[in-house]
């Protein structure tokens, strides 16, 4: 197989969520001395972008998104240390968690897949994440964006508690805050002072990229 065949195979097999084939092709590519960054940016990310586009059009469904994400994750486990060694940068670091009092994670996990698929490094703190845990993780990982997820009207107020904790720790300006979850609206996101809201996984990726772009433009200006 030529490197182009490998890239095409990686793209096609990721798109249909064939994890064993994706892993196999990843190993083949590395044995041929292909660059880990090329596999990521020329096959895996475009494949997940296509998954997102199809999902948004209603041509792809949740299980297909999950298996494509799983296929990519298998490859990334192999590639991640190599990417770090070769100095390849992710497009940004996204810290994610379901707020305290809430144990729902299906929506959050879909968002994680699409973020990773877009080239973000995602650090998932899981469910029931207390404000102080978000603060500690922001200090430790220095993410570009932190995402708060809530599935219940009773746990949404934790957004505000998290924001207050960030303010108190002097971290509010250092990180972009996004919120989401079934009952969350743009209005609610505005009311708690979040920087961004999105209603689904694809929209989250777009919004995250846009917010990151704005922030970087502002910092460099």
């Amino acid at each position, binding site marked *: 197989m030529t490197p182009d065949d490998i890239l095409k195979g990686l793209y096609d097999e990721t798109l249909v969520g064939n994890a064993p084939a994706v892993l196999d092709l990843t190993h083949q590519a590395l044995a041929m001395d292909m660059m880990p960054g090329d596999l990521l940016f020329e096959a895996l990310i475009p494949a997940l972008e296509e998954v997102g586009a199809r999902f948004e059009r209603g041509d792809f469904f949740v299980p297909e998104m999950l298996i494509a994400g799983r296929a990519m994750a298998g490859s990334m486990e192999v590639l991640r240390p190599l990417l770090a060694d070769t100095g390849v940068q992710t497009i940004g670091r996204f810290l994610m968690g379901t707020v305290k009092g809430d144990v729902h994670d299906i929506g959050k996990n879909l968002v994680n897949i699409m973020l990773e698929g877009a080239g973000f490094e995602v650090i998932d703190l899981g469910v029931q994440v207390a404000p102080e845990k978000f603060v500690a993780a922001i200090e430790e990982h220095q993410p570009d964006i932190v995402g708060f997820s809530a599935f219940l009207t009773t746990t949404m107020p934790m957004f505000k508690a998290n924001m207050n904790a960030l303010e108190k720790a002097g971290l509010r300006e250092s990180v972009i805050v996004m919120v989401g979850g079934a*009952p969350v609206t743009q209005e609610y996101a505005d009311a708690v002072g979040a920087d961004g809201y999105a209603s689904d996984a694809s929209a989250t990726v777009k919004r995250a990229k846009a917010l990151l772009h704005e922030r970087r433009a502002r910092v460099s200006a």
Partner: protein
Amino acid sequence: MTAPLRHTVLRSATKEVVLGADRPFCVIGERINPTGRPVLQAALREGDLSIIAKDVASQVAGGADVLDINMGVPLTDEAELLVKAITMVQGLTDLPICIDSSVVEALEAGLAAYQGRALVNSVTAEDDRLAAILPLVKKYDAAVVALPNDEDEIPMEAEKRLVLTEKIVRVATEEYGIAIEDIVIDPLAMPIGADSTVGRETLATIRGIRERWGLNTTCGASNVSFGMPHRHAINAAWLPLAMSAGMTSAIMDARTPQVVDAVRAADLLLGNDEWGMSWIAAHRARQAAEAAAGGP
């Protein structure tokens, strides 16, 4: 050793509905809920409840036995809205109501305003939720939907869900004096699109609840098909499967004939519609409606 079947009695001021495995399935109409409905949210925020009247009419016309009312609009006084909605709906229909809120103050206000014997939706196996909600259920002589998840997780295995159900039953009956038949368990029907084992585990949970305690059960019927195409067909297959395992009610959209018909056919096939009288009556009503619509 199988537990006796329990009957959960719900009432409005004038009408009684009984949940039980030897009764027709209880369709809890779910549409009176602003979640994911920006137009309704905006109207409710302005204090305009007129859309609700249409939702009530369509759920009743579709064959709902009970109506679920949720007024969870962010940044509003949910208690006040819920009281208004309950009062309004009780003026429009005699169906009993399932008061749906995770806000304790709203539940209390709703229960105080409600005429009859309500179903409270819902409590979990979390200690603080049990302590906050069960006294209200007792005080207002209501029934309660309980979800077997706790502060740590939504367990995916049936056995863990049964352990939490055991806790809920113990705390409700022993600590708060709630009658066991007034506990309705939601066995947590999760999306099948996210995990292919959830259908099996939920059916095992329903069977376990039926065998060990004989309790009534309910679920959000459309949850199972989240993220999948052709959702009504999945819901219409799910409910008869769940009924066969012992499920006795569901919170569902009564406007979808495909799903309501599946439930009523399952009632007939499970022996809960004697001589098919309800099935035949529904057929005649449909014929009459068609004749009236297409007549001269």
